[in-house]
């Protein structure tokens, strides 16, 4: 990931001074992060550091107590997941957020069903579109008529990813996308991230694996106890520097 990212223009997303607390606990405390087109920004930190909470403010699952969100330089209000989708923000949740009792097509189009002229859902067309997109992402995918509970971890992941890709995300949030995957499938996700980058999509990647972050990300923002420790360009720091940020909350000796 050595291609230089042009950060002179308007960022795709800017989250400024975001704060949110639950029952007196500051889950996210005055955090600012940004993301440019074609860039992958890793979000790092321990469990409970506030990464997922921060990102849920962007995906519409939570509403921040304070702070502002800008998409393409314009201030936006994201009240629910639908608002986020309207700004082409798609999220792949760690839990995948799939309805296990429905098939792949129903999950892919959940909340955005294709309909016929009479307003009924067009299952045949949705299945055809699902076959197309999954054929691209995971050519081995066959079980189009089975509920997703019958699929393997990798196949379920494919469905969750296809949902983000199909609807032309400009901003993609991936919450530990490879946590449940095998080696081969992890490689597929890495390739996909590369391909999406080339299309100018910006990606927030939440991950625990420092190797992975070094390999996939352009920058990394590290959080600890709800606060932002700092944001670094991963090529300019060592893995130990990043670990120091995560564990000790210590800024690395970074060359500007």
């Amino acid at each position, binding site marked *: 990931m050595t291609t230089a990212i042009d950060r002179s223009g308007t960022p795709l997303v800017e989250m400024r001074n975001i704060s949110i607390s639950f029952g007196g606990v500051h889950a996210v405390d005055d955090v600012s992060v940004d993301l440019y087109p074609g860039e992958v920004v890793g979000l790092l930190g321990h469990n409970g550091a506030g990464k997922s909470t921060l990102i849920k403010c962007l995906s519409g*699952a939570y509403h921040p107590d304070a702070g502002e969100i800008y998409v393409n330089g314009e201030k936006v209000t994201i009240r629910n*997941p639908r608002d986020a989708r309207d700004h082409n923000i798609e999220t792949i949740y760690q839990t995948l957020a799939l*309805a296990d009792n429905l098939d792949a097509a129903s999950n892919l189009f959940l909340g955005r069903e294709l309909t016929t002229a009479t307003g009924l859902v067009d299952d045949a067309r949705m299945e055809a579109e699902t076959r197309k997109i999954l054929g691209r992402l995971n050519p081995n995918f066959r079980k189009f008529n089975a509920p997703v509970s019958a699929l393997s971890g990798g196949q379920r992941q494919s469905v969750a990813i296809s949902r983000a890709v199909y609807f032309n995300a400009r901003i993609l949030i991936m919450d530990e996308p490879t946590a449940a995957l095998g080696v081969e499938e992890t490689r597929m996700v890495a390739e996909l991230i590369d391909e999406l980058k080339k299309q100018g999509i910006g990606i927030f990647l939440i991950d625990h694996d420092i190797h992975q972050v070094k390999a996939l990300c352009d920058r990394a923002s590290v959080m600890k106890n709800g606060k932002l420790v700092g944001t670094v360009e991963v090529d300019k720091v060592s893995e130990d520097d990043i670990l120091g940020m995560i564990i000790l909350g210590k800024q690395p000796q970074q060359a500007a």
Partner: protein
Amino acid sequence: MTDIHAPAGPKKKSAFAALEIDTRLLGMIGAFVVVCLVFNLLTEGRFLTPRNVFNLTIQTVSVALMATGMVFVIVTRHIDLSVGSVLATCSAIMAMMQTAVAPGWLGLELGHPMVAPLAIVVGIAAGVIIGGFHGWLVGYLTIPAFIVTLGGLLVWRNVAWHLTSGQTIGPLDETFQLFGGINGTLGETWSWVFGIICLIAAWLGLLQARRARIRHEFPVKPVWAELTIGGIVAAAILGFVAVLNAYEVPTRRLERMFEARGETMPEGYTEAYGLPISVLLLIIVAIVMTIVAQRTRLGRYIFATGGNPDAAELAGINTRMLTVKVFAIMGILCAIAAVVAASRQTFHSNDIGTLDELRVIAAAVIGGTALAGGVGTIYGAILGALIMQSLQSGMAMVGVDAPYQNIVVGIVLVVAVLVDIIYRRRTGD
């Protein structure tokens, strides 16, 4: 207790597999057939007479109507214990509309053509409001549905009592009584017409589904399999109509009808009852509810929410409003069931719909609706209602005392769910 058998043996051969028939559906139909045959044997052929089949269908309608709505409620991981009481309140409102409000305030006497439609509209409106209110308490105020509807069970039963001052209200309007069963049937000709329309619609549906799959180049069933299914559907629909048409109006009743018109009955004149309007109503509701479940966004969201409420929320579905809608639909169906139940007994009584909540929940559950949510079918719930009613009527015909009937029905409910659990474990569903 051999009445409910495990679903028929799965995947016997590839020819059977090619038909792609739902094995659960097959199991339920199998159980139903076994129940019918056993009782037919025990009653020396009295169970499967046109007359008894006719009675069985009209007795099932009220519970079956509500069971279709209960499927949605249970699929979204809720429960509705108040349906019998809501039915009573809707029935009381409709009875008072006919006997007090219409003649007293609007000057419409019983028998005026506007009385029945007016009463039904007001009754259904009451059902929507009560159901929607339950849904609001559950969805927006997050009170568990079990508690809301347990309260509703007590409240609405006694609101009904209050509305009628505890009296039995009757007789009800004659047009209204057409929905009761025996007092409103299509007759032989129209029953055949309706059957043939249903048949054509079913065939067109099969054809259209096949065309859509071919257009998108999906795998399709072999032609012989489609034809076999088409044939089974035809036999089922036409056979049902034929049986109902074989139930003839008793000669004495016909004579009275002719006398009432000032005519004399011609020698050898016969007339068949045919399809009851209440059953027609159930068929229409079943079709509409199936379309809602399978082909509309609302249905898709109901099942998605039942399968994973968080995922549904994250997909932008307003699950709170969805809860209101689901309970409002339940309310509408309670009101429609109230029309059928009240007109079947030709009057409103205080105990109307008592214990129906248990029959309705049992019908949905026997029909394969999972209490864990996310799984259930409309046709399953109707079959479940039919199986329960067959057991009850059959035992009554054999001469089993009512308390023993309830013991059997209770055991059957538990065993049916056990069979379902074992089936799911085996198939890995």
